[in-house]
């Protein structure tokens, strides 16, 4: 099941959020089931970025739901339910990560200093040097095409596994952004709010993550 976008029927808008919170407060089980169906998997994936152990990540998500329920009275109508839930998740996961001590440094997640580091979308040797007499900085040889009917090939089970593996091998901060933006369809604003990063950093991480996934697809589809 995919979370798709913010437009998910019934989960959009402040008025709907207020209504959902009222239902939860009233103990409506169906509402809780729908929310967990919608968010649980991506919460688990996000928690897994902070705590690598899957069982611990599951624990974090459970803990998050409990905090959500216990905090319902503090939910303010002007914030969005999704954003609120995921803020609780990220806080819970960070706290747990510190306790577990077996995690990536916080700096790699909360406040990535992306602007200082360099990572090319494409290996530099695939371009002519910038001081080349002719065609400086242009392709040495054109990127190979992805063959006939790429759309069909891209939907195969093999490619899905490849994409999953490619996402899993991304650095954590890139993995978060690519997952939320491209796989879950979140808006830039939501991603920046939850992860507390600037739009510029978000774009850099998105670009690097997508570029790595594209490269993995290229290797698979063209053998280069």
């Amino acid at each position, binding site marked *: 099941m995919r979370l798709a976008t913010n437009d998910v029927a019934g989960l959009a808008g402040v008025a709907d959020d207020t209504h959902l919170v009222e239902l939860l407060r009233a103990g409506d089980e169906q509402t809780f089931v729908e929310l967990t169906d919608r968010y649980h998997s991506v919460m688990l994936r996000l928690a897994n970025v902070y705590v690598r152990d899957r069982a611990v990540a599951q624990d974090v998500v459970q803990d998050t739901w409990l905090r959500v329920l216990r905090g319902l009275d503090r939910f303010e109508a002007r914030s969005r339910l999704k954003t609120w839930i995921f803020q609780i998740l990220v806080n819970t996961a960070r706290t747990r990560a510190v306790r577990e001590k077996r995690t990536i440094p916080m700096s790699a997640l909360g406040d990535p200093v992306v602007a200082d580091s360099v990572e090319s979308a494409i290996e530099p040797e695939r371009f002519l040097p910038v001081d080349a007499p002719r065609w400086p900085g*242009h392709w040495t040889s054109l990127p190979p095409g992805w063959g006939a009917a790429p759309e069909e090939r891209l939907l195969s089970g093999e490619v899905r596994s490849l994409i999953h593996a490619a996402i899993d091998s991304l650095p954590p901060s890139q993995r978060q952004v690519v997952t939320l933006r491209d*796989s879950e369809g979140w808006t830039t604003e939501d991603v920046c709010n939850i992860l507390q990063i600037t739009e510029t950093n978000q774009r850099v991480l998105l670009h690097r993550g997508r570029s790595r*996934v594209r490269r993995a697809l290229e290797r698979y589809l063209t053998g280069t």
Partner: protein
Amino acid sequence: MSIPDELSCRELVELVTDYLENALPLAERVRFEEHLPACPGCQTYLEQMRQTIDVLGRVTEESLEPAARDQLLDLFRNWKRGDRAN
């Protein structure tokens, strides 16, 4: 093709996400769009990035396992009985 302020392919590939996110300043956007028609390599690259994004959007999310769902329901019912009353 060697006009000084012309975008090179090497520069273009790094701007693709900003371009797709509508985050390029107008002048950069113009340079980007002027480069493309004459450059099959960058057209291919841009198309492959679009396809990559498309495939990333089709990665299906694992559904909630019955065991996890049951645990969550327990959690909810416990909260309903106990916590909420406090």
